[in-house]
Structures are given as structure tokens and as C-alpha cells.
């Protein structure tokens, strides 16, 4: 599973890190993946946490890219 954060949507609500701090970090008020040049690979076992954080985002700025099976 990978994560992509749309840089123009992240508004610094910080809900992702509040509900899923094991996946999402905040830097200078915004999701640390804002501006990342590559998709973030979610460590195994944290998939549900990643989804929970994405759902909590008021801007739907976090895109979850599921592995193809």
C-alpha cells in the first residue's frame, strides 16, 4: 500500500496524525508527505491505520493506493 498527499489540499487540520500517528507525521503544521516526490510505502501492519488517517482528512487530501492483487 502506498500514500500520496495532494499538496494543494492539505490544510493543516492535522487529523491524520491525531487518529493515525503511527503513519502520519506533521512538519511545520502540514502532513510531512506534502511535497514528497515519491509515494510513501506504508509499513506492513499499518494499512488500517493509514486508511483511518485518510478518512479523517477534512480535505480528502490523502490518497491510498492499494497494492494490486
Amino acid at each position, binding site marked *: 500500500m502506498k500514500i500520496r498527499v495532494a499538496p*494543494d489540499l492539505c*490544510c*493543516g487540520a492535522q487529523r491524520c496524525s491525531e487518529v493515525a500517528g503511527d503513519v502520519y507525521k506533521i512538519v511545520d503544521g502540514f502532513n510531512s508527505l506534502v511535497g514528497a516526490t515519491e509515494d510513501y510505502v506504508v509499513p506492513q501492519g499499518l494499512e488500517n491505520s493509514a486508511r483511518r488517517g485518510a478518512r479523517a482528512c477534512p480535505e480528502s487530501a490523502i490518497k491510498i493506493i492499494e497494492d494490486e492483487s
Partner: protein
Amino acid sequence: MSSYAAILRDEDPRIAQIFNVEAETLSSGSTVIEDPFPGLNRLREAAPVHKGTVGELLGYPIEKGGMFHLPGHLTYSAFSFDAVSRALIENKTFSSEGYDVFPSNARLSGTILHKIGTDHRRIRDPIQPLFSPDAAQTWWNDKIIQETVEVLISGIEGKGGADIFVEFCARMPVHVVSAGFGIPPEEIIPFRLALIGANEHDASPSEREACQERSAEILTRVIEARRKKPENDIISKLVEAEITLDDDTTRPFTNEEIISNCRLILLAGGGTTWRQLGITLFALLNNPDQFETLKADRSLIPNVVLESARWHATDLIFPRRVEQDVTLEGVDIPAGALLHMCLGSANRDPKRWNNPDKFDISRPVQRGVAFGGGPHSCLGQHVSRQEMVVALNAMMDRLPNLRWDTSKPPARLVGGLFQRGPSALPVVFG
């Protein structure tokens, strides 16, 4: 045709009375001002943060108080993008509980607007999904926005000319949000009048209280009906929603919580989008070359909506209360002071945007603060943006060669520092 569409076909003289930017500004206790941006630019160039309210610093007479102005209370104002963005994001230091100090806002106390931290999250989390981008583009769009725009544009397209600010912009959002929530069609305008009346600056306390009770009555009837038999509307969803408490147990919203938050969301939803859509059309009509570019490439519409909000958001200021001594962009602010966050100035910060005073739909989109930011980022912004996208598409499809009616007095952008919009939008087409 739904009963909501039917009521929208009738002309309603109350619309022009309710939706009048200058009258609205005066009734909120503010002074009507023309272009505030030269003054805001001067202030931001002098310093990112100043001591004083935005109105005082601009030199406007605020004899009646004005929105978010508390005479005698130490107030600072933030003008740069960085200062405003930080204040929006650090909500525990720059607290939304500051709204409680304004008598004009006391009636919205207990809502998501005023809460911070866990208390805020607990209430906002169950509401958030009902206003997500996906909900806006599917549920809201399919259930009510498309139908509302179709009925309104059908009523205008054969006329050759209209004041589309009153006949379209004013009618669309109040109808969309009211229908979405499940306010009965015949109650939409009485409910709006009650919401506005409860905040009327010059009304007596008993008059305001009567309005407050009237809006509670209308909402209570809907809530009780939906508790018995849910429908496909927002109040039904709120009745079914669960709040998660500290110990991870859940409980439903109380009637009081639903009523207070419905008042807030419906007041804002029916009040901001009509002015912002008006500002967007004002800017396009004044820039016919850009309007033509847009007609040739409809994929630019979402950008146009954001550019209009950047260029001139209807609400230029929002307040916070500083909870602990803090240094904001080099300026020391003591605990207890109020802070005016000037979104209008931040959105024209030349450190972030080139030639920021120009309305320019070709500008690369980057995050602005027109819809705020941080935990209190505008709840309804995606619904609002979808309304504007559908409305602009319909106008380009159905009102060909849309242009100013030069036989009428030129439209101006008016209002206070809050609730700004056009004086009118007299247009001809065809």
C-alpha cells in the same frame, strides 16, 4: 418535479430584501466600505502583524462596533500569509473559543465554530463525511444542486437580461443547503429570516430571542420527524450519527447539539456562497478575455472558483483569542489578546503570489486561506465549490454572450470587512 423545485419557480419578493449586501452589512453593525485592499496592502508591507483591529488600522469609522470588534479589548491583526496560516493551524494557541467574547456570536456558542481540540473533533468528525469532496460531487450534486440550478436558469434564460445576483446567486445556496438538510420547502425563507433576525444588530434582545426560538421550532419539528422516520437528508444523518467519547463509548447528538450546529451551518451555507459566486461573476464580467478563455476550457472552472476566493474572499477577517504569550512573525502578543486574521490580505501576499492584486485564472493553483485552514477549515467549502462549478457551467451553457447591462448603474463590490459581495449583477445575454 420535487416540491423543492416547485417552490423555486415562484418569484419571491423576500429574496431581494434578505439578500442585499449593503443592508446586511449595516444590520450586522458594520460600516459599508469600498475597496479595502490598497489599505490592507500598505499594512502588510509595513509589518506582518500590527497592534489594533483591522478596521481601526484601516482608519474606518467603527462607531457601531463592527463584526468581531470588541471596543476596549486588546486586539492584534495578522496580515501576512505566514502569520495568518500559522494562526489558523495552531488552534490551541490561537483559540476559536475567542468567538465567545463577541456578543454577536454568543448565539452560535456550543457549535463547532467555537470549540477546540478534542471537544471540537468529537462534534466535527461525525459531520465531516457529509461535506467531503466526494459527498459534494455526488450526494449534494445529484440530490439537489443540479435540480436547483436547472430550475433557476430555466427561469432566467428566456428573459434576455436580469440581475443574476438576486435572481440566481441569492436563491441557489439557501435553497441547496436548506433542501439538503431537510427544511420543508415552505419553511426555507421563514427559517432564513429567523436565522438573520437572531443576529440583527439593532434588534431588541426579545426580538432576537423570538427569532432564535422560531428557528429552534422549525428544526425541532424536522428532528423529531426524522427520529421517527429517517429520510435521505442531512438532519436524518445527524440523528443517526454517533459521537465518540473519551472512554471510546458513543452517544447520539442531542437535539440541542443538532439545532445549534444546523443554525451555524445553514446560516453560513446560505450566506457565503451567494456572495462568493457574485464576486466570481463580477470578476469574470470585468475580465471578458478571461471569461472567453474559461468558456473555451471548462476544466478551468474549479481553478476560477479558487482564484476568485483568493482574489476577494467574501469574508476578509476571522477572529481568534491568544491563549498564551506568543511571538507571531516577530510581534509579541500577550495571552488574552484577540487576533484578527486578515484572510483577504494574506491571500494577496506577494511573497506567495506574483502580481497578487490581479484576478488571473491562469495562475498556478496553490493553497490559499479563503476557506481558512487548520482544524476549522471551512466545513462546507466543497459543497459551496460544487454549487459554484455547476452554476458557472449552467450560465455559460444557457446565457450565451453573458455581459454587463451597461444601461444600469455599474456594479461595485461592497460590504464590510466581513460579508462582502457585489451591489448587483445587472447582465444581458443572447
